[in-house]
């Protein structure tokens, strides 16, 4: 009977363990995502500033022609834990964009150059305009994209690297649709955006496809989770604090319980 009893308990525990380790049920993609060695992963993860700055350049010169990032403001680019452009650089970046403001005292809307407090300029005035310009597909807003897909940063990176010259024979593509190894459903309306030499990095780094994909995904990860660095830093401190506190309280508890235990 005792053996039987132990068996159920351990079977239960094993099943629980297996189920918990398989909790994310992503039936859609059976392909293993590419997992580059992100600097922001791990307990002490931090963003690579230079990479974030290059990532912003990729976004501005490539992605921004179709994708909005409406939750970000130019001032965010100067904030701690992000690309950390200087205040002057951010002013210069913002001033490159035309912004509609108003109404002024005459009741007229007017154009002015951007300020750091402005939101990122969107490529299209609304979703319908964006759909009509992109063959019916809506290029998603990228503000929180890195948190809005199973696999997150790895998934976006994989999709960017997942374009292949040859389409497998069993897949039929309509006009304006491309094959992508990692995209959910393997079909994507976006043509490979990061072909070699599409941009030239201002800091002189060679703009290979891999480099651009890595930089822009770092940038998107920061955009989705701008307080990641402080979160991990604070996380480490609080875990250590709680660990020490727990040990101390446990020792106190043991001492308190010694008052009665010898009498048992």
């Amino acid at each position, binding site marked *: 009977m005792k053996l039987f*009893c132990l068996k*159920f308990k351990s079977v239960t525990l094993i099943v629980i363990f297996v189920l918990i380790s398989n909790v994310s*049920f992503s039936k859609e993609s059976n392909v293993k995502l590419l997992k580059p060695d992100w600097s922001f992963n791990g307990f002490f993860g931090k963003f690579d500033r230079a990479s974030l700055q290059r990532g912003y350049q990729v976004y501005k010169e490539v992605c921004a022609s179709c994708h909005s990032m409406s939750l970000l403001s130019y001032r965010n680019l100067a904030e701690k834990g992000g690309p950390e452009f200087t205040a002057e650089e951010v002013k210069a970046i913002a001033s490159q964009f035309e912004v509609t403001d108003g109404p002024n005292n005459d009741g007229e809307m007017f154009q002015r150059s951007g300020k750091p407090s402005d939101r990122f300029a969107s490529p299209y005035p609304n979703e319908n305009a964006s759909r009509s310009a992109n063959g019916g597909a809506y290029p998603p807003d990228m503000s929180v994209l890195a948190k809005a897909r199973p696999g997150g940063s790895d998934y976006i990176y994989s999709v960017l690297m997942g374009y292949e010259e040859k389409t497998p024979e069993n897949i039929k593509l309509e006009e304006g649709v491309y094959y992508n190894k990692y995209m959910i459903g393997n079909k994507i309306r976006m043509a490979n955006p990061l072909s070699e030499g599409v941009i030239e990095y201002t800091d002189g780094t060679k703009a290979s496809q891999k480099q651009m994909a890595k930089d822009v995904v770092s940038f998107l990860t920061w955009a989705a989770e701008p307080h990641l660095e402080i979160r991990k830093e604070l996380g*480490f401190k*609080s875990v250590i604090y709680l660990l020490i506190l727990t040990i101390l309280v446990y020792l106190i508890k043991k001492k308190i319980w010694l008052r009665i235990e010898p009498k*048992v």
Partner: protein
Amino acid sequence: MSSEKPNQQYKPVHTNKVGGSPFTGVTGWIDNRLPIIRMFKHEYLDFQVPKSLSYFWSFGGILTICLILLIVTGLSLGMHYKPDAKYAFDSVEKIMRDVNFGWLIRYAHMNLASFFFIAVYLHIFRGLYYGSYKEPRQLMWLIGIVIFFLMMATAFLGYTLPWGQMSYWGATVITNLFSAIPLVGESVVTWLWGDYSVGDAALNRFYVLHWLIAFLIVGVVAFHVIALHIVGSNNPSGIEPKDTRDTVSFSPFTTSKDLVGMLVFLLIFVAVMMYAPNYLGHPDNYIPANPLVTPAHIVPEWYFLPFYAILRSIPDKLMGVIAMVSSIAILGLLPWLDFSKVRSSVFRPIWKQCVFLFVLDFFVLMYIGGAPAEGIYLVIGRIGTAFWFAFFLILAPLVSLIEKPLPMPDSIHEFEEWKKQGKIKTIKLFSK
């Protein structure tokens, strides 16, 4: 005309009950007029608690802390959140980006909800395993089930508030369950929505109800705790304390032990919140709600999955809803379905197996709830559902009838001695 009878004896009345405090000075002055200080001393300092409580008894305290933290973080979030279909998503993102430590408060609130359920499931398991639902604690058990229903309601409502894709579609699926009510179903759903679909009106009232139910929980928890202080704690032996050899005073013994339990729980919670804050959530909820695009799989939060599996395993909608609700409500019948005189599973060899199988079933159903409702998953889901109900309706009375309990000690202190001699084994959360 006077109807006074001069000879009648009138009962004296004392509307003034000032006095009786064991304290002096200012404390005594207050306590004479508002006896909460002596009540606190009586119920939390001198209160006698069985000596044999394991760390499984920390979850009551842990849940209280969770509830307080949820209310505090919720209050802070409420000061920045806008319950408007147009602004809700962006206001949550504003909290995450621009409010000072808003990300911390929001991640805490989000993950606390999950950890509240982890703690409550362990708390319920404790009750099942050690027979805490039996005489005289039936009412406390029933109040607990009411709390669980309220928790589920408020968790569901809270999940709709960020107005992401899963919020929107989860709300649509769950509110549509009411359409299964015969005759008036459709009208009830329209009434709940305040519109002809889930939208702004629904979001606004969900926000109000999320608050309301949170405070209802506080009230019902108060009843749960008052009832506990009347019937006293159960303990791993399932034997009632008889004399001082069996008990310890609540403070400092139980308080110090509960504090250890709470800190360990807090440690795990903080580690998850800081390093995997979105692990227990769904990525689709970072996509703003879009009534025109249905997500590939609409999945509820992990803590609803077992009940979602039960709902989906019944082909008829109305019967499915009834099965889902009764799968929880049936816990309330357990004190009467299980009529064995022995409380603790330590002395119930067959019932112990049943409880472990029930836990296994819970996890299997949780897995099924997250899997697509087709093929083999549907079959397993149906077996799991059948076992869930069989556990209560067949196994509980049957085992009470046929089981022969193991020899039991006479008292808690004897139980402790047996434990030391290795005669009995209990489940431990941490070894000493």
